[in-house]
């Protein structure tokens, strides 16, 4: 997997400190490195959020050792505060931020191009085009960072992170750098007078980077003889371009400029490429960053080469590029001057969309059911602000349990806003344990301080589930699998000043409903911790230990089942099947949580006593 290759590259480069926060598609980079942490004397940690992780890595890099920070694109927004100033102080040991951009997006709230941050912070950006290159170039990214004393943005996408390929490995060179911190206030203390001097230094460094980009071997043009069209492609779209030209049989008719060191851009190489073609197509993901700059270069040198891409509609404005999408763009441009070139179209069959749901026995589904009952008891109205985690699958039918999902921690602050604005009815924020510790504590302190009348449900399943069950400070173990102190969510909530707190198990429907109603009735912020360990992860761990997983078996009495589908419609459990209008329980999926038995209006679901 690409993420394993990036991990391997970082280890080969002798990285000493690695920090990150899980996020698809980046998560496996850090967990792979963690497996070798002891062997090569590396410190590896899941930090509480991306800003914390970046600052840990940055601090380490100031001491002269190599440090790596891993994140998905949204995490770069979180760490950007530190990033922009860290470019002013610069680093001593190599500091690389691997940002895995979900550009489609496949599993994120937005599709974002973090390359803008490289421009904003004035730091180099490297975009490998395949798994092998990702492994090789991360080593180079560390060297580049040390050469320029700047953090380097290493930008990958899903088609590298989760792609697999044959990879040639190199030797691991464990770091011999000795960490030391040398006081240098004019560089590390960014008060305004010092910052005014450092901005000049930073501009000089990025100019030096431009010279390196100009001569970089992976910023290279392959000219096709007498080609009128040239494609400028960065990252994964480069490989798609080669594939598209091959499938269309156009390899000899189109030149390709591959760009890998993409900030700063090699302007002279681009200018020369522009001079040699009447049309240039830019294939990049996901915003027209290179395209805009290529257009500007063409304009500056007075060329009438036409620059095509996402801006003039030759490349679809949104979503990831694929070989067929690039192929279609190439054919459309060639057909302008050559009517013999056929523009291919590929039509995918239209079939119903499969809507994902929460797993069988998911405690979140039970929490949502109790929340629904509690809202009904309180007379309805209000709103449920959701957050980021598995539980946002609760938006899908039949649950349709949340009304918003924006960014880490926003549930609590947005609920506060709705409450202060005067929205009538209970306002409820729903947030997972990991998300609460990432960026939910400050909004809760804020809600208490400013007397927001809200109910906060902390869905505590003990793991960072959605991204593949990473441990967090609430799990009791760290990334190395060692025991780690467990934060007390209750004490934390109390310390924030919350006056009304109850801890319940969502598998007990009546108790959970009563706790939510009571929290809603409380004037001011109230918290319900709905605690049940993620059964998927719990069973996995216990099975690995060789334990036999035992749980109660439930069955439906078909004489009693009226086929009302109340259970299917209110918890949407995948273990519930419907045959000839009656419900049955699939024993291959059921984990015996017993929630369906508690909610069945005719009590048709019963535990089978062994």
């Amino acid at each position, binding site marked *: 997997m690409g993420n394993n290759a990036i991990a391997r590259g970082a280890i080969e480069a002798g990285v000493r400190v690695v920090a990150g926060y899980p996020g*698809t598609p980046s998560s496996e980079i850090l967990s792979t490195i963690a497996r070798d942490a002891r062997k090569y004397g590396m410190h590896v940690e899941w930090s509480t959020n991306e800003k914390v992780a970046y600052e840990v890595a940055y601090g380490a890099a100031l001491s002269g050792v190599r440090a790596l920070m891993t994140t998905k694109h949204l995490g770069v927004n979180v760490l950007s505060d530190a990033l922009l100033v860290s470019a002013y102080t610069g680093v001593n040991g190599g500091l690389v931020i691997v940002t895995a951009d979900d550009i489609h997006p*496949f*599993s994120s709230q937005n599709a974002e191009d973090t390359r803008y941050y490289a421009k904003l912070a004035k730091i180099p950006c490297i975009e490998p085009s*395949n798994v092998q290159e990702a492994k090789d170039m991360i080593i180079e990214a560390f060297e580049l960072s040390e050469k320029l004393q700047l953090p380097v943005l290493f930008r990958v996408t899903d*088609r590298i992170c*989760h*792609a*697999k*390929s*044959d*990879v*040639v*490995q190199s030797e691991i060179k464990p770091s011999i750098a000795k960490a030391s911190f040398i006081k240098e206030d004019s560089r590390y203390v960014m008060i305004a007078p010092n910052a005014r001097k450092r901005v000049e230094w930073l501009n000089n460094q990025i100019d030096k980077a431009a010279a390196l980009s100009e001569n970089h071997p992976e910023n290279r043009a392959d000219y096709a003889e007498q080609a009128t069209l040239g494609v400028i492609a960065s990252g*994964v779209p480069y*490989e*798609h371009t*080669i*594939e*598209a030209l*091959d*499938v269309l049989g156009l390899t000899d008719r189109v030149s390709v400029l591959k760009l890998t060191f993409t900030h700063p851009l090699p302007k002279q190489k681009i200018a020369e490429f522009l001079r040699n073609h009447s049309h240039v197509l830019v294939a990049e993901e996901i915003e027209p960053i290179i395209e805009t700059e290529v257009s500007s270069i063409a304009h500056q040198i007075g060329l009438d080469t036409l620059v095509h891409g996402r801006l003039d509609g030759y490349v679809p404005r949104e979503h990831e590029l*694929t*070989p*067929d999408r690039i*192929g279609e763009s190439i054919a459309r441009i060639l057909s302008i001057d050559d009517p013999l070139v056929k523009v291919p179209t*590929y*039509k*995918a*069959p239209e*079939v*119903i969309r*499969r*809507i*994902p*749901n*929460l*797993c069988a026995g998911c405690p979140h589904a039970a929490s949502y059911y109790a929340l629904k009952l509690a809202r009904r008891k309180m007379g309805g109205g209000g709103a449920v602000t959701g957050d980021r985690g*598995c539980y946002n*699958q609760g938006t899908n*039918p*039949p649950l349709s349990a949340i009304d918003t999902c924006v960014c880490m921690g926003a549930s609590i602050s947005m609920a506060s806003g709705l409450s202060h604005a005067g929205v009538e009815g209970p306002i409820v924020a729903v947030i997972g344990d990991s998300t609460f510790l990432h960026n939910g504590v400050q909004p809760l302190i804020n809600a208490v301080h400013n007397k927001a009348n809200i109910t906060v449900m902390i869905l505590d399943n003990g793991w960072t589930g959605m991204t593949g069950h990473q441990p967090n400070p609430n799990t009791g173990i760290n990334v190395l699998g060692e025991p780690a102190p467990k934060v007390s969510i209750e004490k934390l909530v109390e310390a924030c000043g919350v006056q009304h707190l109850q801890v319940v198990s969502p598998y007990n429907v009546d108790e959970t409903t009563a706790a939510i109603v009571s929290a809603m009735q409380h004037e001011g912020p109230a918290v319900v911790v709905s605690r049940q360990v993620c059964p*998927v992860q719990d069973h996995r761990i216990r099975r690995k230990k060789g334990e036999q997983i035992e749980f109660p078996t439930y069955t439906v009495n078909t004489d009693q089942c009226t086929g009302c*589908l109340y259970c*299917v*419609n209110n918890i*949407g*459990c*995948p273990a*519930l*099947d*419907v045959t000839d209008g009656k419900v049955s329980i699939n024993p*291959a999926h059921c984990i015996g949580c017993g929630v369906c038995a508690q909610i069945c209006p005719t009590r048709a679901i019963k535990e089978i006593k062994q």
Partner: protein
Amino acid sequence: MPHKGNQGDKTMSFNMIITGIGGQGVVSAGTIIAEAALRDGLRIRNSDATGLAQRGGSVHSQIKIGENVKSTIVHPGTADVLLGFEPLEASRYAHLLKPDGIAIVNSKPVLPVTVKNGMMSYPLMDELKQIFDERSLKSIWVDALEACERLGNTRVLNSFMIGYMAAKAKLPIKIETLKETIMANVPKRTIELNLKAFDLGLQQGEEE
């Protein structure tokens, strides 16, 4: 795993896609086939869509084998094999098959909750087969779930389907290598059962 260098045909290229839903072992099957190709000295690219794998969403794995593989994505009209673990999810990707490609599909549907409660309706099996027929694509349908039930465990569906495919399609990978790779990739306690499922698939594929 290191690349051993291609010992076979330099111009050979083989593309395939495996489709299904979370929990059916789509990604593991993709890993097994890609790794088996690697063990046979071939170059590979493999890319998965797994965003919601644990939550009953659509999952697919694309595998490309050959000395000159580039992009990890299978270009429409270039797949030799579509291996479908679920009928609806198989039909969704019919356009990836090349004209002489072949779809091998488990005919047992997995119904989404929104179908169970009547919000949506699942296409008729004939409508799904029609998607292949109207494109003049060959499709073979097999009740793999029933076969796995005979083995007493439906969790080995992927091994059965790999075996069945090995009988029905011309793979660039040796049968023995596929078995070795299954052994290396599945949990120890399930090795025997997975190999049984593979053999059953292979046998059933050869007989049918």
